[in-house]
Structures are given as structure tokens and as C-alpha cells.
């Protein structure tokens, strides 16, 4: 596929939403060599799908899938090795598990494998009659299958090489014009179908920028050629419509190596009740190609242990099947680790299935630091650390969790997270507004407002944004499209932006869905209030949404529920919120518990946390379901969910992997270390050095994690470490990518430098209290990494201090030498001019007195004024040469040089180190070194 800059033209809108749209390629071609041989063994029985076959036209085929059932409920796909025999080759033939009709009548396919046998009845009819290719379900499906209308190819808004198709055939009317009529019908040749440009190009018989995309043996080739030879017919209006597709086997199959392949069968059901095999026309993608690939023929091939969602697409229909691949791991034995609650039960079930062992529990020190950072965003103080570490009670972890959830910093820290999602910036909701909105969010969290109420207050908000802050929701979501995209991403976990202009290329969202959702929000009106910065949100009683492509007026539409015929006439949003917050809503609770999970464990069960889609399945669906169910049952109590997760052994697992889970990155066998967020990091540095940052315009003591909006204070350090600007609702806006700027900040950036040099910082305070070196080193460790230094660390630090002994004296000596040197340079620069001026002045003194006068003039500076007086008295004029006179006599370059030297001379003494500097320098080094450890920088 050619990917040029032009393919990115419409990108801007789509990029934020799903760069995925275009990076996901069609399924790959697999060679048989990659496959392990099937170990047939002794199945207890075999099952053939479908159980019976009806073929009603000459074009129809049927994919068979043979499953072996083994002792212990184990399943294996035997399609590749089964033997198929037709009872009557005049009726039906079978090759490579694909059934093809030959003549009307009834027959049987006998399937034999592993000593078992099964029979499939086949009824064939309609063989004498023509079965014209359907334009939509044949031609357009074939073009989709070959990838012609992919976003990077002819499906891009500007097409390619003057040939433009609708993205994934979402607009058959346009495609009809393009294929048959545009450019004088040059693409199809009904008089010599095989010579059609539409075929010659992808066959590379004619130069094609996209390369070889079609082989004459592909099923798509026959479909396209036959469609052209039948005169490029369109589907009659009464032709049956596809209503659904079914993929076999259903989700949940577990394959254990060497069994690692699964043939899929895809059937389409039409509005007349007929069913057709579309296995060869469906498009397959695997959500995790490291786990499994899918061939163009629908053969799933496992590569590694894990789970994948195979997404099957046929026209606007999308279905996915989850398949789990497992294998024996040498040395693995399940240890039956204890569980704290249902979280562990679900996580461990998955780990056991995939043969990973969870890591040990983390240490108290790790737990303390981790939980503080996750719940309240800041480090525990030295005192809090000591108290917790010395606490011997068995329930101290659970108690700490409860304490933290009741701290005021809890709500402030989680308001920061919601601030990102709700796009709290003064730029978007005004200087006053942002504080009010922030306080509203913070209070809702502090009071543990149930999530359904919280959502309802935002989504059904109206009135002044100043008196009713949640109304700002409709200020940041400033138009109908923004509302659809924001609501769907925040509350449904669906990125709908693509569907604004075309059916979502990889998901079930269609353009109709987008505008159907819009019909809930298009009546929201915004006008300026009377007070400065105030907006007034209200709902009008009329106004409809028109789908821009079809021109159809859209009814409000709800995912899975469909069109709403009678929405609340006063405010359609109420209907939406009622649906959204219903206990059985399949999106609402899940997205929030997943968001919470992702905050606490560094990775969502669905990751990215706000990107729920068929092609991005949860890594542990049962866990997500259980959390969501618990959340709903506990009346959307967010603290309850946080508490449940924090109390699990899963959360409390060590970040250190063991030999049996090193490879795991997504099933939560060990804690995932991650860089502190920008705000956490700044607060932590302030806390370690005990030098708080002051943010102008905000009360003293405001922490970075408590900033209402990123644009209230511009702070370079925060920006460098990924503080989002809150321009989008996407969780991805908060960057965790490391960059060079970060390294520079920690190496010798101004923020850390200044705090280390600050006269009032932690170690200087401790020095004033006359603490020992050991004590200070211990305190620094407790403050920064919440544990005492190890003996080795302490030893090394002490050694460093010792090694600095005498350093300042040495430095001061060097400094003095430098001062002397610069003094000499000053002399050297001014002396020639000085001598000249002096000589000129002395020349006016009578010869005999000249020597005396010279001596007098050269008298040391301090006594100069007296000399001057004397000279004036004696000669009637001063002979002393002043600095000003010398400078005046110099040329510009020399003047500049002299000034610079003088300045240096004045500055240098300030560098003189006071007594005790050796120790301070050493402690600065030590503190700097601690701040530069991964242990400090990372949540772990």
C-alpha cells in the first residue's frame, strides 16, 4: 500500500482519534510452512460446522470447520487435516474444506479424522439459473477484501491516481458512479471484461502505484470479472439486504500448542432469511499480531501465548471472536497463591491459564510510596513513613488505604485526572469559571458523589456556567459534533471522530450512528451571560440533525438500543442520560472502572483506557465485568472500587518480575513501574528538598497536583514532563514518553539546581540542627524513596562526604589565585594608558620636584585624597590620574575588555566558599544523586 503525505490530508480530524485507522493492515498471507503439524491424537468425537448445508445458486460455496473434542473438554481445530468425501460429485464437490455445488439434488459430505466420522447433508438447488453478482455484497465486498478502498489507498478522501472509492465502501452510490461511469466508464470494459482497468491495475498488468493487489486466482477476481461481464449491474431495490454476520467458532476457544490454528467460518444472513458463506470475502484483522495472525482465508494462526480478538468485517458489519492461545512453559507449576478479593481471583485465573506466576507481595516501603502516589499524588513525609514502617499491625495496609481515601489531597489529585478529561483550562471556561468548575469537580470527588449522579450533573447541565459549574461541560464541548465525540469517548469509551465523515473503518460505528447520537445534543444552545466570562447553557425545543451524506433527518440513536422514537420532548439529553446510567448499560460502568484501574496499575484492562472497541479487547474480560458489576451494585461508589483494587494482592504485587512472568506486560502478574507524572514529580522534588514551588496567582502551598488548570501557571518543568494542555478529551494527551528535555532537567536543570542550592532546603535545615551525616543521609532517603538507606548506600554516601573534606579550602585557594591573576590582567590593560597620562601630568611639574611628585602620585589608593590636596596646594593642580581619565583614554575594544575584567574581579570573591562548605557540597551531590535514581523517578 502506498502511503504518501496526501493520505494524511483528512488526517487532522482522524489522527487524534485513531491513528490506528490507517495503520491496521488487511490480514496477511501465510505460508503453510509457518504452521505446526496437527497432532490429531484420539478425539472423543468430531463436530462439523455447519451441520447442514443449503446451496441455492451456482456462486455459493461453504467453508467447513471441523472441531475435535478431546477428553477434559479440550478442543482442537482439525479442518486442516480432516478428510472430506462427497457422496455424489455430480451434486457437490469439496476441496480444502470448501464445498462447491455441481448440480441440483441432495448429497452428503463425509468427514473423517482421528478415527471419527461425521456427516453433513448438502442440498443443492438453482444450479441451472444465473446468479448475478451483487454489486454491494459481491463487487464492493471484493474491493474491500483486496484493500482497494482502504484509507491509505483509493479510500482516502482524495483517492489515488484520480481513482477514488468511498472508505470501506460506506457509500455505494458514489462507488457505483466511480466504477461504472466516471471518466467515460474507462475502468470497466463490458465488451472484454478481463481487459478492464479495474482488473488490469491490481493485477499489475498495467502500472499500478499500489502494486500487486489481486491475483487471477483470488475469489475477488472472479467476482469482479463476472460482475463486469454481466454488464456492471446494480442491485435491484428489492434485493435482500444483509442483516447480520455470524462468525464460527464463537468467542472463548482456547487452543494449546501444538494446536495453534483455527479456521473461521463467516456466514451472512440476509433479509429474506437466506444464509451465505462469506468466509472468502470477509476481511480479517488480529488485535494482537504477536499473539496471532489471520490469513486472507480466515485461518487464525497463533504465534505466542495470549489472547487476541479476531475482527471480522464484511461491508458495515463487524464481529469479533476472542481466541486464547496457551502452551506449556518449562518449569511452570501453579503455586495457588492466596487471594485477597475477587480482583485477585480473576487475575490469577487468567495467569494460571496463560501460565504466568504472580510476583511476590511488595515490601511495606514500596506499598507505602506506591499507594500515596496513586491515591493522593504525593510522597509520604518522613514522619508518615517512619510511622507506617514501625506499625506492626496486620491490617496496616488496609488502614492506610482508608486513611488516604479520606485525605483532602485525594479529591484534589483525582480532580486533576478529571480536569484532564473535562478539559479544564481557563482558556476554555474562563479565569473565574475554571476555579469554580475545578471546585465543583473536586467537591464531587471529596464527597464521593456516585458516578452516575456525577455524569448526569455534567450531561444534563444547564444554566449559568458560573452558578452551575457543570454546565461548563457544554462550554468545552462547544458544538454538537464535539458533544458527540466527547460524550462517546468519556462515557462510552468509543472514539467516534472517524464516523463524522464516514463509517468507522474498523469498528461498528457508522456515520448514521454518529448523527443519531448528535440528535441528543444538537438542541443544546450557548449564549453569553451578563457577567464577564459567563456562558448560559440552555436547551431549545426544536432542531433536528441531518446526516450530511444521505440528507436524512436523524432520529436520536442509542448504541445497541437503536433509534429512539419518543425522546424526552423537553430535553433529549435526559433520555440519553437515563439510558447511559441504567444499571445494565454495557459501557458506562466499564469505562470508569477501567479508567480507575489504569490510574492505579499504570495500564488499563482495556488499553488505552478510553479506547474500547472490538479490535482492542480487554486483557481480562472477566475482571473488567466483575469490577463493573461491583461498581454498579455499590451504587457507583468510586472509592469502593479504588479500595477494592488497592486491597488486592494484584495491586500489592512487587514490581520485580520472576522467571515465570518476565514476558508478561498486560495480565498484571507484577506491578508496572512508571515515571511519576509531571505534577507528581514536581511535588516530590519540592517535598524531598522541602522547598515548595510557588505558583503566581494561586495560594501559597498549592501543589502542582492541585493546579486547577495547566494554563493558569506556565511551568516549564511541568510541560517538559508531559503535563497536557487539555485540548482534547483523550487520555493520550498526557504524554509519558521520555525525552531529552527530561534528562537535561535532572542533570542540571534550573529547578533542581536552585532547590539544591537553596539556603533553607532540607539538608541545610538538618545541618543547622546539627544532625550527623548518617542522620541526614537517612532522612534524605526516607524523604525521597521512603526507606532507610542500605548499609552500602550509607557507606558510599559517607565516603563521598569524606572525600570532599578539604575540597573547599582547595577551591578557595584556586579562587584566590584566579583573583590575583585577573587583577594582573586589569593592570596590564590599563597600565600603558595610565603611564602615558601620568607622564603627561608629571611633565608639567618642575624637573627637580618630579621624582617626589611621582612618588606622591603613586601613593596607595587609600591616601590618595590627601596626596591630591597636597599636590593642589603645592602645584596648583592635581596630578593624580583617576580611573575615569584612564578609561576615557582607552579605545573602545580595550575599554570593553577592561570592563569585563573588572566585573569578573568584582564577582569572583562571591564564589568564596564559607567554612563548612565541604559538607554542603557533598550533601548537594548526594541529594542530587538520589533524585536521579530510578527509584525516585518511578512509581514502583
Amino acid at each position, binding site marked *: 500500500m502506498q502511503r504518501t503525505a496526501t493520505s494524511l490530508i483528512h488526517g487532522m480530524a482522524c489522527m487524534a482519534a485513531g491513528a490506528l485507522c490507517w495503520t491496521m493492515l488487511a490480514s496477511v498471507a501465510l505460508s503453510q510452512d509457518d504452521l505446526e503439524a496437527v497432532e490429531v491424537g484420539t478425539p472423543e468425537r468430531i463436530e462439523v460446522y455447519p451441520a447442514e448445508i443449503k446451496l441455492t445458486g451456482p456462486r455459493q460455496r461453504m467453508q467447513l470447520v471441523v472441531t475435535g473434542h478431546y477428553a477434559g473438554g479440550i478442543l482442537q481445530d482439525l479442518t486442516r487435516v480432516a478428510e472430506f468425501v462427497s457422496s455424489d460429485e455430480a451434486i457437490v464437490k469439496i476441496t480444502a474444506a470448501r464445498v462447491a455445488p455441481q448440480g441440483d439434488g441432495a448429497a452428503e459430505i463425509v468427514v473423517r479424522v482421528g478415527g471419527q466420522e461425521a456427516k453433513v447433508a448438502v442440498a443443492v438447488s438453482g444450479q441451472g439459473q444465473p446468479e448475478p453478482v451483487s454489486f454491494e455484497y459481491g463487487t464492493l465486498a471484493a474491493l474491500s477484501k483486496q484493500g482497494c478502498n482502504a484509507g491509505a489507498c483509493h479510500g482516502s478522501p482524495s483517492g489515488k491516481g484520480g481513482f477514488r472509492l468511498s472508505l470501506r465502501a460506506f457509500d455505494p452510490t458514489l462507488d457505483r458512479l466511480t466504477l461504472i461511469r466516471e471518466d467515460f466508464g474507462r475502468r470497466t470494459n463490458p465488451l472484454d471484461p478481463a481487459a478492464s482497468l479495474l482488473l488490469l*491495475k491490481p493485477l499489475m498488468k498495467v502500472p499500478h502505484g499500489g502494486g500487486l493487489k489481486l491475483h487471477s486466482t483470488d475469489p475477488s477476481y472472479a467476482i469482479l470479472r463476472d460482475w463486469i461481464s454481466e454488464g456492471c449491474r446494480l442491485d435491484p431495490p428489492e434485493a435482500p439486504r444483509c442483516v447480520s454476520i455470524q462468525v464460527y467458532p464463537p468467542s472463548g476457544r482456547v487452543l494449546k500448542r501444538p494446536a495453534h490454528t483455527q479456521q473461521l467460518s463467516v456466514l451472512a444472513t440476509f433479509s429474506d432469511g437466506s444464509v451465505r458463506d462469506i468466509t472468502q470475502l470477509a476481511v480479517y484483522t488480529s488485535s494482537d499480531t504477536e499473539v496471532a495472525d489471520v490469513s486472507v482465508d480466515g485461518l487464525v494462526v497463533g504465534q505466542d501465548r495470549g489472547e487476541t480478538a479476531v475482527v471480522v468485517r464484511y461491508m458495515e458489519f463487524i464481529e469479533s471472536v476472542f481466541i486464547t492461545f496457551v502452551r506449556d512453559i518449562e518449569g511452570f507449576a501453579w503455586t495457588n497463591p492466596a487471594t485477597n478479593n475477587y480482583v485477585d481471583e480473576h487475575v490469577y485465573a487468567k495467569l494460571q491459564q496463560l501460565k504466568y506466576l504472580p510476583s511476590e507481595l511488595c515490601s511495606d516501603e514500596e506499598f507505602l510510596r506506591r499507594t500515596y502516589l496513586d491515591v493522593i499524588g504525593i510522597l509520604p513525609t518522613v514522619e508518615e513513613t517512619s510511622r507506617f514502617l514501625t506499625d506492626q499491625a496486620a491490617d496496616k495496609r488496609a488502614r492506610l488505604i482508608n486513611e488516604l481515601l479520606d485525605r483532602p489531597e485525594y479529591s484534589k489529585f483525582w480532580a486533576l485526572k478529571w480536569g484532564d478529561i473535562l478539559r479544564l483550562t481557563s482558556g476554555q471556561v474562563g479565569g473565574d469559571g475554571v476555579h469554580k468548575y475545578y471546585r465543583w469537580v473536586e467537591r464531587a470527588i471529596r464527597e464521593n458523589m456516585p458516578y452516575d449522579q456525577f455524569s448526569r450533573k455534567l450531561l444534563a447541565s444547564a444554566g449559568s456556567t458560573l452558578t452551575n459549574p457543570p454546565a461548563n461541560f457544554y462550554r468545552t464541548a462547544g458544538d454538537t459534533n464535539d458533544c458527540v465525540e466527547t460524550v462517546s469517548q468519556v462515557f462510552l469509551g468509543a472514539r467516534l471522530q472517524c464516523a463524522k465523515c464516514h463509517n468507522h473503518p474498523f469498528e461498528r460505528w457508522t456515520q448514521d450512528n454518529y448523527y443519531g447520537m448528535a440528535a441528543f445534543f444538537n438542541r443544546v444552545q450557548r449564549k453569553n451571560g451578563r457577567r464577564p466570562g459567563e456562558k448560559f447553557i440552555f436547551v431549545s425545543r426544536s432542531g433536528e440533525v441531518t446526516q450530511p451524506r444521505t440528507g436524512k433527518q436523524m432520529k436520536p440513536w442509542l448504541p445497541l438500543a437503536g433509534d429512539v422514537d419518543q425522546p424526552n420532548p423537553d430535553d433529549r439529553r435526559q433520555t440519553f442520560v437515563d439510558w447511559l446510567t441504567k444499571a445494565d448499560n454495557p459501557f458506562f460502568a466499564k469505562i470508569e472502572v477501567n479508567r480507575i484501574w489504569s490510574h492505579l496499575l499504570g495500564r488499563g484492562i482495556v488499553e488505552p483506557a478510553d479506547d474500547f472497541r472490538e479490535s482492542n479487547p480487554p486483557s481480562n474480560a472477566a475482571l473488567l465485568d466483575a469490577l463493573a458489576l461491583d461498581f454498579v451494585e455499590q451504587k457507583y461508589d468510586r472509592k469502593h472500587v479504588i479500595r477494592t483494587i488497592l486491597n488486592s494482592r494484584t495491586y500489592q504485587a512487587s514490581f520485580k518480575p520472576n522467571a515465570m512472568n518476565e514476558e508478561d506486560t498486560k495480565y498484571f502478574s507484577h506491578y508496572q513501574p512508571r515515571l511519576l507524572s509531571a505534577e507528581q514529580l514536581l511535588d516530590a522534588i519540592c517535598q524531598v528538598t522541602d522547598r515548595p514551588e510557588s505558583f503566581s496567582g494561586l495560594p501559597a502551598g498549592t501543589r502542582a497536583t492541585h493546579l486547577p488548570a495547566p494554563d493558569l501557571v506556565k511551568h516549564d518543568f511541568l510541560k517538559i514532563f508531559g503535563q497536557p494542555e487539555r485540548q482534547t478529551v483523550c487520555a493520550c494527551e498526557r504524554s509519558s514518553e521520555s525525552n531529552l528535555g527530561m534528562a537535561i532537567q535532572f542533570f542540571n536543570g534550573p529547578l533542581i539546581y536552585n532547590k539544591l542550592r537553596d539556603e533553607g532546603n532540607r539538608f541545610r535545615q538538618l545541618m543547622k540542627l546539627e544532625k550527623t551525616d548518617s542522620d541526614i543521609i537517612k532522612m534524605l532517603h526516607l524523604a525521597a524513596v521512603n526507606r532507610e538507606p542500605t548499609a552500602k548506600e550509607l557507606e558510599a554516601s559517607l565516603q563521598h562526604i569524606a572525600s570532599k573534606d578539604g575540597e573547599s579550602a582547595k577551591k578557595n585557594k584556586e579562587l584566590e589565585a584566579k583573583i590575583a591573576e585577573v587583577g594582573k590582567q586589569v593592570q596590564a590593560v590599563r597600565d600603558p594608558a595610565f603611564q602615558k597620562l601620568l607622564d603627561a601630568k608629571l611633565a608639567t611639574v618642575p624637573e627637580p620636584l618630579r621624582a617626589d611628585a611621582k612618588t606622591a602620585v603613586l601613593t596607595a589608593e587609600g591616601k590618595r585624597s590627601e596626596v591630591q590636596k597636597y599636590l593642589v596646594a603645592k602645584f596648583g593642580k592635581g596630578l593624580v590620574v583617576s580611573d575615569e581619565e584612564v578609561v576615557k583614554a582607552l579605545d573602545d575594544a580595550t575599554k570593553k575588555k577592561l570592563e569585563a575584567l573588572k566585573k569578573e574581579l568584582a564577582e569572583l570573591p562571591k564564589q568564596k566558599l564559607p567554612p563548612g562548605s565541604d559538607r554542603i557540597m557533598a550533601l548537594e551531590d548526594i541529594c542530587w544523586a538520589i533524585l536521579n535514581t530510578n527509584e525516585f523517578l518511578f512509581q514502583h
Partner: protein
Amino acid sequence: MRYSVVVLLTVSAGLVTSAAAEPVSFRKQVAQILLDNCLACHGPKKAEGGYRIDAYERLIKAGDSDEVAVTPSKLDASELFRRIVTEDESERMPLEGDPLPAEQIALIKQWIEEGAKFDGDDPKAALATIVPPPVHPSPPEVYANSLPITALTFSPDGSQLAVSGYHELTVWNPADGKLIKRVHNIGQRTHAITYSPDGKLLAVGGGTPGRLGETRIFNAENGELVRVLGSTSDVVLDVAFSPQGDRLAAGSADGVIRVFEVATGKPVQTITSHSDWVMAIAWSVDGARIASGSRDKTAKVFDSKTGELQVTFSGHGQPVKGVAFHPEGKEVFSAGTDKKVQRWKIEDGKKTADVGSFGEEVYKLTAGGGFLFTGSADKSARQYDRKSHKEVRKYEGHKDWVLSTAYHDGSKRLATGSFDGEVRVWNTEDGKIVVTLLAAPGLKLAAAEGS
């Protein structure tokens, strides 16, 4: 230098049967094999393995592999030959395709053994321009489907109407709609048919979509092929004789306007100003200027002597499919996908008027007898006074897009051709249909309506 159809046939015969006695001609025998089988991957668009065959000079050199492609007289030092005969499918060319037929391989073998000589004028010239013009296959005796009527024209005396067909022109009697004759040896599609001002020559522009573009000049009297002008890689979309008849301009899907000397067939100008298909061409009355319309969304005017660009009109913002000069020569009409016919000044490229208003896109403009004719996807043709651009008449009744129009001033007849293959002849004096015909021999009108 004129060559007849007979000569061409002999040349073509050489392509099929390799006469071992005679030396193989690169130009006449080998080049076409390479063009048909290798160009798609080893040409200017795509040069797989860093190797290109689009000119002799290139094809004998090594690609990225440094294996010399063709070594004269040494088969075993000719990578090109090894790659077409190797048993290893991962190496055999054309990749992922059927191997070349044995007789074609034999020709290439013989050519290399005989010294791999180049028998053209310029070893740097594109192969497409040095191969002899093809002899086109015969049209179907009976059409299974109709083709869009992309071009038609009246003979100078108005007694015949030549219409685009599949590998042919069909010639009809415009008075009764009877088929008079069929002219063969023409490219798959025809996009332009025009007589020279003196009526002695008939120029046919077209070709095979994506593969070949050419303009064929026939002796109007006896139907003999006089000359084939300028082979290109994609179809010729419009041709026009200069009013003096000494030159012919052809616009093609490679974005180039080529001007030929009619008497010799020598190319005299190659204008590459457009960045996409050139879809329409017109000469000013004095022959000093050429106007063009292009899929690059512009219309342009050039000095016909120097090829210099004089003005670009971007007012359509959509592909431009038709152009015509105002009779006074200072303004141009252009039409296109923006559903407009616009009139604009050559001096500054500023629009002076919209002509009429259309519901759908407008195709080529026909200027004739003081009138301007349009055909449009709104299924109508219209007649305007070319000076005042007042609408004289609207011709309705076609059931599909009207792609082409032709006018015969002597008989006051207008012919219109539509996408569904139907041709209508109208009397412009009363607007009545004279005759309706389906320009697809053997296909019934009713059958066409049914599809």
C-alpha cells in the same frame, strides 16, 4: 512517408512468428513484450530492484543487484534472460505471474544472441514511443453491451456521422440512422473524432485506458490509415486541427499537449504545463493560440507557436472538460465538473460571465456556425449564441448523460451522444429529433433501455 495497413500487418505478424532466418528487431518485436510484461514494475512509476526497462539504454544496465541485465551475445551473462527462464518461482519474472510464452522467450533469446542490438533512432527514447503502432483487434461483430458515446462528428458534407465505437468508428446516415460502414484498426476507446478543415483527413484520438494513447489520421476519402501520431501511455482525450489545417494538437491522459505538423507527422510542440489529464483542446480562429481544459482543475491558453503559457484560469475549482474560443478571440469558454460554463478573458484570466446554468457537470464544448453547444450530465444538450451566449435552444430527451455533441452548419443538424450508447440527430431549426439510433451494432435499443 506513408505506410498502409498492409505494411502494418506484416510488421505485426513478426511479433507472433519468430522467423529464425531473419534477425530479431528490438523495436518491432522485443520492445512490446517488455512493455506488456515488465513495465508495470520496472518503469518510471515503480522501479523494483532499481531496474527499469522503459528505455533501451536503461534496460541493458544492471539494477541494484549489479547483475548486468543484458550482455550482447552472452545469454549466461544476461540477468534479464535468467530471470524469465529460471525454475525458481521466487525469482522468475513476471513475479507471481505466469511465465512468458515460449515463443516470446525464444525471441528475446535470439535477440540477445544476435548482439542485443538497438534498431531505433535514440536509445534513450521511451520504448512506448519507438514501437511501431499496433494493429488493433477487430471490433465485435455484435455488441453485447453499449459503450458511452464519447465522440462523434459529421462529415464535411453532412452526409455521414462518425461515432466512437469499440475498436472502431461506426459511420451512420444522419438522415435515417442506418449504419453505412465500420472503420477498423482503431484503439479500444475513441475520445475525439475530427475532420481537417479541408475535409481530406479524419483524425481519431483515443487508445486503451491505462495502456496506450494515440491519434490516428485516416484518408477521409478511402479510409486508409495515413499516420499514427505520438504513442503515449494513456488515452488521447481530445484532438483539434488548427484552422489552417497545417497542425494538429492532441491532449492526453499523460497530461501533455502535443502539437504535430500534419504534413509530416513531426511533433513540433510538447506542452507539459498541465499536471493531470488534458481533456479538451481548442484553437483560436487565427491559429495563434491553443486553449486546453484539464482534470487538474484549470483551463489554460498557450501560444501555439512557442508553447508558452499565456494564462491559467482556475475559476472552476473542478476538472475542466470542455473549452472553446469566443469568436472574437479574446475570450475563452470553459466547462466542467463544477456544473458551469464560464467565459473569461485571456488577457487577465478574469471571468466575464457564466453561460447558462446547469444541474450537472458539463462535457466538451462544440463551437460551430456562430453557436456554442454543450452536453451535460443533466441529460440535455444546449445551443447558445456564441457572441451573446444567449440560449438558443435546449435539446431534451436523452435518458443518460450527454457526453458528446457535433454540429453541421450546412444542414443545421446537431448530433448528440449519450452514456447509454444512444445517438440523436436534431434539427436545430425547430429542435425536433431527426433520428435516434443506438451506436452499438447488433444491440437492440430496447435491450439497452432495459439495462
